[in-house]
């Protein structure tokens, strides 16, 4: 605000209106989350009657008790952690070496390999051939199928490759003098220098794994293997059509609305916990490769 007095009257009005508009947009982004949280902490009766607007009405944690007493909720929660952790590690194991190799000028047919990667960003065979391929590989209904089947993403490879290309040659030359081979150059020089870029890619992987639902829904039949998002869908989307279930809960301390609000809150919490760490990186990360490609 230091230069505020340098501004003309018109500029000041402009700046103030601008701030108000941004404030409104931010509030409209925040409000649904507040609303859902309040709903989850209200009694089923008040929620059904549409009395919840900003703060909880008739404060109760019955909905949470209901959600947390469901074994499938915990199973799917644990599965999500498995898919997120191992899926992200798997992605990095493919993306980092691949991006490094593609960034080396001496790679024979470099243009061709890069095109092989980039082409998948613009053209893919579609849902059905992908599904049939997973089935032919025997990866239906398996943890491993979900973990490996979605490991590589062309955009992430190119993002990291661009970053590697930007690292000055001199770092590598120094390591070569000391007799380092390609593996050592990648492990000891490039990876430490690329922490922000790798962290960004890892975060992209974590978020997409944590949130992924479509293919888990299609590929997994066994209830014990489904991730949280698929379970959420079963509860929120399918039960919202189930009038009988909804009315059976009418008089209870919780209702369909409060239960689904509670389960939404439970599944957002982990994202909110890592959000501050994520934020540090994604500003930087998108600058690295996003614009360039």
């Amino acid at each position, binding site marked *: 605000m230091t230069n505020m007095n340098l*501004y003309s009257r*018109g*500029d000041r009005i*402009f700046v103030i209106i*601008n*701030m108000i508009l*941004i404030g409104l*947009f*931010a509030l409209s*982004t925040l409000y649904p*989350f507040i*609303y*859902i949280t309040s709903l989850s902490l209200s009694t089923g009766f008040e929620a*059904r009657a*549409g*009395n*919840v*607007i900003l703060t909880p009405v008739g404060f109760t944690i019955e909905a949470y008790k209901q959600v947390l007493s469901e074994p499938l909720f915990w199973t799917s929660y644990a599965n999500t952690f498995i898919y997120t952790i191992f899926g992200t590690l798997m992605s990095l194991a493919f*993306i980092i070496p*691949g991006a490094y*190799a593609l960034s080396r000028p001496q790679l024979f047919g470099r243009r061709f*390999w890069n095109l*092989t*990667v*980039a082409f*998948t960003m*613009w*053209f*893919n*065979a*579609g*849902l*059905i*051939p*992908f*599904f*049939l*391929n997973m089935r032919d*590989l025997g990866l239906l209904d398996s943890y491993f199928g979900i973990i490996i089947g979605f490991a*590589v993403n062309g955009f992430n*490879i190119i993002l990291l490759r661009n970053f590697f290309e930007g690292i000055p040659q001199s770092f590598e030359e120094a390591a070569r003098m000391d007799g380092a081979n*390609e593996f050592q150059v990648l492990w000891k020089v490039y990876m430490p220098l690329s922490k922000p870029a790798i962290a960004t890619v890892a975060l992209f992987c974590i*978020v997409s794994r944590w*949130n*992924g639902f479509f293919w888990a829904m*299609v590929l997994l039949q066994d209830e014990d293997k489904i991730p949280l*998002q698929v379970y*959420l869908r079963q509860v*929120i*989307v399918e039960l919202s*059509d189930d009038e009988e279930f909804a009315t059976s809960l009418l008089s209870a301390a919780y*209702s369909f*609305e409060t239960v689904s609000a509670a389960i*939404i809150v439970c599944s*957002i919490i982990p994202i909110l916990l890592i*959000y501050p760490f994520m*934020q540090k990186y994604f*500003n930087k990360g998108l*600058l690295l490769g996003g*614009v360039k490609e």
Partner: protein
Amino acid sequence: MSITGQGNTGSTEELVIEAQEALHYTPPGRMQRVGDHLRREWQLYVLLLPTILWLLIFLYKPMYGLQIAFKDYSVFRGVAGSPWVGLEHFQTLFSNDQFLRAVRNTIYISMLSLIFGFPMPIILALMFNEVLNQFFKKSAQTIVYLPHFISSVIIAGIVITAFSPSAGIVNTALGWFGIEPIYFLTKPEWFRPIFVGTGIWQEAGFQSIVYLAAIAGISPTLYESAVVDGASRWQMMWKITLPSILPTIIIMLIIRIGNMLEVSFEMIILLYQPATYETADVVNTFIYRQGLQGGQYDLAAAAGLFNAVVAFVLVMTANTISKRYSRTSLW
């Protein structure tokens, strides 16, 4: 200068040959050169191999499987063994009202998202750039980026809850104005506004990052000279900031047009119901229902191929046009 010391009579080429003969050296053949290169750089290919194999197995092999779009696919005979039927599936599709409706809806919904959704992050970035109070700016950004990280299932859950006829806040609010509750999610005419609005709410903030990055790269001297000339903040925004980020805007537009047919069908699957298929069913949800739920793999694959080819043509066209008129392009 001659290496063999017999005077500099020949051309450089001759000299080289002379030198090679003197050293008993013959230039390596192509195979040998490749061999030498591989022996020296094998580690590089070891690093590249897993990624390429992954792409071949999970993304390129399905492209081979796409041929079932032209076959009478039978699970028992497999992709290669099933008999060819030519363009039969495409004929079926183009005489199928549901498919044609899905194509129309796809175009309609993506046009709406493009028209209303594309400018929003640009406007937001321009606005964020004018905020002087860093604390306010950071906090607002933190909030508007957040929905991007929330899964479509949760967003759909929030939409379903908020628009519910009895308990939802939207109908409660309408009630204050004496409006009867509307069953939004069962009304075809409401599907598109809700879907497009949700998309903007979820992504506009996060997408503004790219433009903010572009704005950060603008040379401060441009603004300094504008201040000397007595330009207002508004004029600087129009005359400096916006033109400076135009290349980024064009690139994002190309990407957007290329992905146009990839309307986020996950969200549609979560939000639509038979009552709203009329306006909500898109090509990808059609494929999902016919293929993955109905088992008509060949027909659904044909629909997918149609979608992918149109998308590919779209991005190529957008890129070519952009290259010609603005010298900005993806490749």
